[in-house]
């Protein structure tokens, strides 16, 4: 007998199965806009009326390519509903017209007339922001009829083939009003364009990638562009929006500990990330041991992050590139902006040097907790402690003429930690300077020539009874580079150039004990590269390139030789160029567009790196990290990365989806031996071991970039291991940043014009850590004995941050001001920064409570951290 409950249960299962089976079909039907039904009256319509109905009811618009038709011609409609596809075919019969569907655009071309190459001209120039004159990177320009187009390069320059004659050109950039221009082209034309900001966009504050369509159509994979404008309203630690912290939250990027500026990309070490500020390398991007980064939110225009395919133009690091660009300054009028927060305040001034020809921007930031501390603290120790940082950005540009523009920019940052009680002063900072010249040789050839200076230095001062000791260390670069973009034709853009850098490394010297000073390491690093981005057809694009690099050790220098036991057996003094490394780095990326909104991508990258960062601390970027150059004892690092990606866009719903998978093989990865002595050690190479690294994983990212509710959710699975002779008894072990699972979620909800809420939630597996398996006692101390390296995991990490932005006026008002309230770590998760065993401690974790009992403790940095900042612009 059939049980009625079973029937009901079975019915539910059947319904579920039907739903599961039909869902893709239903979704597919829904997503195909060509099937949308147009409701019409049964009567005669003119062509123009029907096209109006299509535009009104479906949101589609028409583009035309050298066709002529009579909009007044009538067509009989004998049904009340007709599909979009059928109606378009009625208007433009297949025998006469070719129809292409691009997003919401219907392109109509004549089948009887085509263009030949000698009927085109070259249009070129810059695309800029109308209100400030800032050049826009990645803006697109295309001809409506042929859909031929191009996007601006890293300097805001474009060059594109357009047909001779009358044409309509569209210019677009995310966050700006579209610009449509009617042009009558007769010959090659210099055309500088400017776009106006779309005011509503100021309220769209979610961190997003490039517009989804660009993701689908370009060869870029694992590339993310971010605008500072969007970052500013996301929840941030101490209310200070931070470029690096945003990067750390992205899929494929891992950190070791909370509150640091270091990050690890797809299994690469900390030093394998090239960080550029206006093309100058930054060796330590951290303020206050990494709680903040050096990037001032008001001085930064935008940034681009590469973790997959890295074009041949860039080199010197294995795993990622973060290119941060400073604002150029307003060429139209004087503006000021700034903010006052609990930790720091900042002020930025922009003004034209000569209106519409040149401008200058000055931006500064300083913390002031030290003032508060010294004023309010009753404790001598804190009263006599001075901890602060400041940084200063400056940039100027001047347009000499239509073909030549000069830029000069600089950054100066400094961290000061003076702990008078302990007679210590620790000071560190970065300095950069960039002089650039943009030159347009002709309608197809663009060049950027740069002279670059970069320095990272730290200093430890110790006050003694009768003198002051100073220990100084620095790495300094002088670079020259020329980058060319050659717009060969509408299908090929060539990039090529030459880079040359002189690295000067002073690992450490002291005024009081010269015998402890370490000798300098000077090197030259050169690179030649060439790449081509080619469009094979409408669906298939390929970008390929080759980078050849040469690294040379320069004397005078002393190189030590070590035996197998890492003891010094000989040394040699060298002058001039005494050692060379040469590397060939092929790069290739392909994109195959399966459908209008779907594409498959793949890439292969080989990268070489000659600089190495060694550290024996558990905290990324500790000021005292030690940069080293490749030399006869240290081979360059190499990496081969293979990646594939699936990208899909759901334009109707405003969603973008991407799935990237990668495998990376790393050679000559450096690791330090247990308890390595890295400072003041002239035989430091004896403390290093070299081996292989392996990393694989996949990254899923879903984004919504339109509407009141915007945001993204990402998931990363990543595995990273190392196998290095002399470490972990030669066995494979997890890298410390091996965190297999990571979920990151970010959202912004715009309640109204003046009130916006933001939330971030991040979860990751705990980092790999070496944990003790037993202990022994020595002189009253309990000494841990460890098992395999990184044999355990820290507790899982998760944290929720909330923010609320309250505009005093509408965001598009001329004078803006707004409050940002943030709650970092809203539910007070005590995320472990480290774990250790100790004799039982008191509740403050300072005094030993019971020496006879041994316990395991986790140290953590932050509980709930509320913050508020006031920001203004006028």
């Amino acid at each position, binding site marked *: 007998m059939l049980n009625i409950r079973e029937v009901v249960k079975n019915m539910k299962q059947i319904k579920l199965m039907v739903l599961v089976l039909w869902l893709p079909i239903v979704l597919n039907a829904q997503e195909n806009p060509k099937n949308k039904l147009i409701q019409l009256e049964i009567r005669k319509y003119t062509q123009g009326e029907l096209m109006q109905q299509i535009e009104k009811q479906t949101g589609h618009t028409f583009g035309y390519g050298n066709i002529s038709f009579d909009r007044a011609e009538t067509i009989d409609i004998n049904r009340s509903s007709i599909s979009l596809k059928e109606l378009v075919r009625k208007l433009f019969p297949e025998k006469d017209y070719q129809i292409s569907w691009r997003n919401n655009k219907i392109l109509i071309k004549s089948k009887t007339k085509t263009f030949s190459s000698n009927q085109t001209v070259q249009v070129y120039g810059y695309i800029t922001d109308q209100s400030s004159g800032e050049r826009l990177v990645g803006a697109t320009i295309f001809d409506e009829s042929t859909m031929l187009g191009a996007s601006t390069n890293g300097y805001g320059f474009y060059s594109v083939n357009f047909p001779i004659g009358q044409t309509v050109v569209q210019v677009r950039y995310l966050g700006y009003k579209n610009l449509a221009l009617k042009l009558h082209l007769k010959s090659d034309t210099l055309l500088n364009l400017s776009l106006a900001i779309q005011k509503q966009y100021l309220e769209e504050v979610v961190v997003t990638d490039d517009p989804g369509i660009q993701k689908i159509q370009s060869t870029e994979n694992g590339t993310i562009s971010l605008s500072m404008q969007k970052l500013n309203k996301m929840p941030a630690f101490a209310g200070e929006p931070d470029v690096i912290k945003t990067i750390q939250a992205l899929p494929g990027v891992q950190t070791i500990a909370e509150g640091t500026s270091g990050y690890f990309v797809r299994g690469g070490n900390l030093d394998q990330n090239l960080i550029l500020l206006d093309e100058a390398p930054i060796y330590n991007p951290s303020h206050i*041991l990494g709680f903040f980064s050096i990037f001032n939110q008001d001085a930064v225009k935008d940034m681009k992050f590469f973790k997959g395919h890295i074009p041949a133009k860039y080199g010197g690091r294995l795993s990622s590139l973060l290119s941060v660009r400073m604002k150029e300054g307003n060429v139209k009028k004087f503006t000021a902006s700034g903010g006052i927060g609990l930790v720091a305040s900042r002020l930025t001034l922009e003004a034209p040097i000569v209106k519409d020809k040149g401008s200058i921007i000055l931006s500064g930031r300083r913390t002031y907790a030290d003032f508060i501390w010294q004023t309010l603290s009753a404790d001598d120790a804190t009263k006599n402690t001075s*901890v602060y940082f400041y940084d200063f950005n400056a940039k100027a540009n001047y347009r000499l003429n239509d073909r030549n523009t000069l830029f000069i920019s600089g950054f100066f940052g400094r961290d000061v930690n003076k702990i008078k009680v*302990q007679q210590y002063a620790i000071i560190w900072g970065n300095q950069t300077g960039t002089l650039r010249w943009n030159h347009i040789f002709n309608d197809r050839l663009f060049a950027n020539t740069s002279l670059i200076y970069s320095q990272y230095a730290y200093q430890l001062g110790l006050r003694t009874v009768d003198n002051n000791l100073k220990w100084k260390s620095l790495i300094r670069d002088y670079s020259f580079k020329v980058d060319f973009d050659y717009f060969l034709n509408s299908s090929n853009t060539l990039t090529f150039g030459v880079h040359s850098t002189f690295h000067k490394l002073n690992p450490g010297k002291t005024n009081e004990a010269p015998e402890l000073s370490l000798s300098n390491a000077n090197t030259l690093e050169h690179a030649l590269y060439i790449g081509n981005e080619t469009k094979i057809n409408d669906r298939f694009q390929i970008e390929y390139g080759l980078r050849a690099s040469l690294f040379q050790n320069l004397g005078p220098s002393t190189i030590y030789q070590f035996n197998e036991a890492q003891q010094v057996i000989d040394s040699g003094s060298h002058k001039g160029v005494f050692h060379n490394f040469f590397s060939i780095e092929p790069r290739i990326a392909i994109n195959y567009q399966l459908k209008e909104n779907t594409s498959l991508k793949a890439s292969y990258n080989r990268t070489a790196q000659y600089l190495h960062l060694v550290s*024996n601390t558990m905290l990324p970027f500790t000021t005292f990290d030690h940069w080293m150059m490749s030399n006869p004892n240290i081979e360059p690092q190499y990496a081969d990365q293979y990646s594939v990606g699936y990208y899909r866009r759901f334009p109707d719903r405003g969603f973008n989806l991407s799935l990237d998978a990668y495998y990376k093989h790393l050679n000559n990865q450096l690791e330090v031996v*247990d308890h390595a002595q890295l400072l003041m050690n002239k035989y430091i190479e004896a403390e290093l071991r070299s081996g292989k690294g392996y990393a694989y994983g996949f990254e899923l990212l879903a984004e919504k970039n339109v509407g009141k509710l915007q945001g993204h959710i990402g998931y990363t699975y990543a595995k990273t291991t190392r196998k290095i002779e002399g470490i972990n008894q030669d066995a494979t072990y997890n890298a410390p940043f091996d965190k297999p699972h990571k979920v990151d979620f970010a959202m912004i909800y715009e309640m109204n014009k003046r009130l916006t809420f933001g939330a971030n939630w991040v979860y990751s597996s705990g980092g790999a850590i070496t944990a003790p398996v037993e202990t022994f006692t020595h002189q009253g101390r309990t000494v841990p004995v460890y098992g395999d390296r990184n044999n355990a995991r820290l507790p899982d990490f998760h944290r929720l941050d909330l923010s609320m932005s309250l505009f005093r006026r509408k965001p598009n008002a001329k004078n803006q001001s707004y409050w940002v309230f943030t709650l970092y770590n809203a539910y007070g998760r005590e995320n472990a920064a480290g774990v250790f*065993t100790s004799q039982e401690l008191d509740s403050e974790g300072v005094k030993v409570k019971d020496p006879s009992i041994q316990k395991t*403790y986790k140290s953590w940095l932050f509980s709930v951290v509320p913050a508020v900042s006031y920001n203004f612009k006028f």
Partner: protein
Amino acid sequence: MNIYKIIERIKYHIRSVISILSCFVILGSTGCLTEIDPLTEENSTKTLVVEGGITSELKQHLVTLGLSGNVSGQNSFDPASGAVVTISDGENSYLLMEDTKSPGDYYSQEIAGEPGKSYTLNVHYNGESYQGTDTMVASEPFDPVIPAPIEPGRFLFGKHNKGFYSIELPGNFGNGKPVIYELYYDTPDDWKDNFPYSIPQRFIDRTNWQPRDTTYLIHPALETAALFEYSTTEIVGIPLFTLIRERQYFMSEAHYAFQRSVLMETDWRGVNILQSTPGNVTGNMSNGAYGFFYAMDMHELQKIIEE
């Protein structure tokens, strides 16, 4: 034997670090420590642990033998009792006898090591043999400590600075020679009667203000992990006519590496944000035993604080 640093100093420095962090978090939401379960399973192997050695002083030298213990829980390390322990220099061999009142402690006769010689500890325990060898590095003369008058208005002393001094440790930063450095202060009992200056109230009222006998490990180079843990200058109140005795024990490279590793895994770990990557402390004992057998030459200086 005194531990290397006074515990109060460590606590003080830890507080300083926490205070620095609190500066940035403003509202006092700073981190701290929370007890958690051990991350790995206990796996105590009851391995032999050696602690002790021989110096150039003529005295009974102590070698303590114990066994390894658990990571958490009751911190009891069992003694290794009933072992046969000898120290030899290649020519002579000295038998060490176990203290019946303190199992695991083995004492030699009154002997003194000679600089330049290598000494080997032999242990036979539970059917296994263990050996460890260290070479006694000859000591070198060193300059006596220079107590510097406290500057007016300086930390702790205020304007009552007369007659008080600070001490700079001899090259804690980049000394080049690793030594164990001991400071002993012999303050005359009647110093207050003869003290010619006003005494800060805080020192009159307190009975424990006097400088303590302390032992330091002097490092040949800058130690990142210890930046907040030691300083080059100790500030102590030293009345006039105090006798300062300084002892330096010169260490072999292997011995210093061991001592430094122990500090990296103990005192310099915890809330210290600059702590090093964890690693095993490697000693000089064979057959898998933990610990270190040392041989050290000692040099002593004495100085009386006079006006």
